[in-house]
């Protein structure tokens, strides 16, 4: 199918027009087909704001600046901008200019009002919340900072001057210290030169020792077995100590009872009268047995064999 020249030219022109319009809206971060509405604000200082700068709400681009001019009535900066119709701009919404003019990235932020407020109509006015930008804040603090820097530089100069005086004075501690360090380093150097052979020998021995250690430990299996045995031994010792601990606990309990005079042994230990009575009984028994061995007939004359069997 052959198209006429006029048709091709017309298509080219329309295509360019569509690309131009949609391209500008796209790069202005505006919806390609949705409509926008205009708003205005006034600033004390534009801070580099120019037409085309974006308008944002919480970091989301919702429009762009159309016009920045001086209001002849009050000599303030009047800014006209448009935002997407879907943005809920209500009463209480404020504007603020932010960004760095030096980098060319200046933008207008909308600080939205409470959700319950009345919507601001097209062409409405929004108040501005003036906040100095970063560079302005730095410029305001510059005198204080410069004073501080000046003092620091003066202190630094004093330190450097005193250091220089110390270094230039032959009798100063710093000079003496440097001389001492220099002589020490010289002596150490001489020692190292004189003992070079021995140092070399020592290093060789250390090398061979580390090699032997490496060979001894090199068998990973034997080392692992040794560690395993050691671990078993420690486990057994642990169990033994636990048993010993339990036994000592029992002994401790028993000793406590004895100390408190509980039980027979406790009474024996803690009651001296019982001890004395027992002692006297044992003395009496001993005297009785002695008498029995000396005079058995006295105790057996009444015993009859028949009674015994």
């Amino acid at each position: 199918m052959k198209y006429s020249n006029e048709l091709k030219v017309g298509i080219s022109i329309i295509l360019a027009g569509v690309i131009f319009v949609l391209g500008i809206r796209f790069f202005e971060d505006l919806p390609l087909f949705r409509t926008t509405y205009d708003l205005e604000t006034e600033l004390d200082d534009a801070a580099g704001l120019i037409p085309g700068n974006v308008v944002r709400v919480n970091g989301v681009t919702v429009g762009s600046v159309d016009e920045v001019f001086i209001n002849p009535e009050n000599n303030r900066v009047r800014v006209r901008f448009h935002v997407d119709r879907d943005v809920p701009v209500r009463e209480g919404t404020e504007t603020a200019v932010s960004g760095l003019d030096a980098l060319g990235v200046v933008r207008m932020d909308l600080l939205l009002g409470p959700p319950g407020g009345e919507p601001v109509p097209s062409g409405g006015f929004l108040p501005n919340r003036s906040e100095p930008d970063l560079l302005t804040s730095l410029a305001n603090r510059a005198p204080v900072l410069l004073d501080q820097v000046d003092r620091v530089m003066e202190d630094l100069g004093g330190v450097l001057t005193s250091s220089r005086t110390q270094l230039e004075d032959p009798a100063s501690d710093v000079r003496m210290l440097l001389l001492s360090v220099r002589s020490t380093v010289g002596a150490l150097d001489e020692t190292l030169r004189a003992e070079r052979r021995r140092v070399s020998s020592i290093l060789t021995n250390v090398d061979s020792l580390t090699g032997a250690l490496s060979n001894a430990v090199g068998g990973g299996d034997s080392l692992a077995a040794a560690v395993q045995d050691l671990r078993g031994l420690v486990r057994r010792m642990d169990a033994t100590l636990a048993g010993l601990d339990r036994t000592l606990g029992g002994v401790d309990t028993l000793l406590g009872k004895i100390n408190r005079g509980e039980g027979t042994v406790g009474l024996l230990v803690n009651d001296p009268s019982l001890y004395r009575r027992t002692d006297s009984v044992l003395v009496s028994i001993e005297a009785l047995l002695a008498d029995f061995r000396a005079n058995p007939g006295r105790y057996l004359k009444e015993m009859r064999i028949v009674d015994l069997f």
Partner: protein
Amino acid sequence: MARHQFGDKDVSASCRAPNDIPRARPEIRSPPMPSSVPLITRQFSALGRYSVLMLGAVSTLTEWGTYRRNIGTQMMRVGVDSLPIVCMATAFSGAVTTVQTAYQLVSPFIPDSIIGAIVTSSMVLELGAVVTGFILAGRVGARIAAEIGTMRVTEQIDALESMGLNSVGYLIVPRVLAGIVMFPVLYVIGTFVGISGGLLVGSLGGFVPAGDFLDGAREYFQPFDPVFGVIKAFVFGFAITSVSCYMGYYADGGAEGVGRATTQAAVLSCVYLLLADLVLAATLL
């Protein structure tokens, strides 16, 4: 009636229609100045002849019947036929700009999105118009000068004048109008292709993600930039076509003169294009 061929156009119909035939203008072609005349004088003379020629073209703008048959063809040749080479050149320009910008941005403090901002601004403000202008200066400017110059040395223009046709309105106006109308079209499409080429190479080559590229382009975009580019395109279109028409219209010396006029048309178009670029940037930005 004999059919009269001028260039690739049949003007017999114009000769037959009394209402479409404009009154013949006085001859605006002055004899060439001898080489003994100082260079500065010759240059001022050339400027004067160019001005008179363009004024003559402007005065025939109302004579729609003179050039209406030609303008569609010229817009096709100047605009649509140039689209492929313009798109190719601008696509490579955008791609190369992306790669070189990424190569030069080595600081960790500069975000990758700056690449998108630089490429887009460069294409919209400068490369889209200038690259397209150089392409048209070589392709269209040389062709216009060769066509009109050949008609001049073969006395076809004299024949037009003798038949009562206004040669300026018939030959120059449609070409200049085609340049003025179609150059912005080529600029817009070429710039779009150039930015797309930069975006494509940046994302596929791993220089900058597509999202960062577009974020940077949007961050630093100024609505006046494309308007400035279109203004440049109008001026470039006029400069290239009018200078080429001038060189061809005043060609002399046979085939050699046509070749000389063609070369001069291409070279002078590029020079005036750069000069206009500087003047516009200094006055409008």
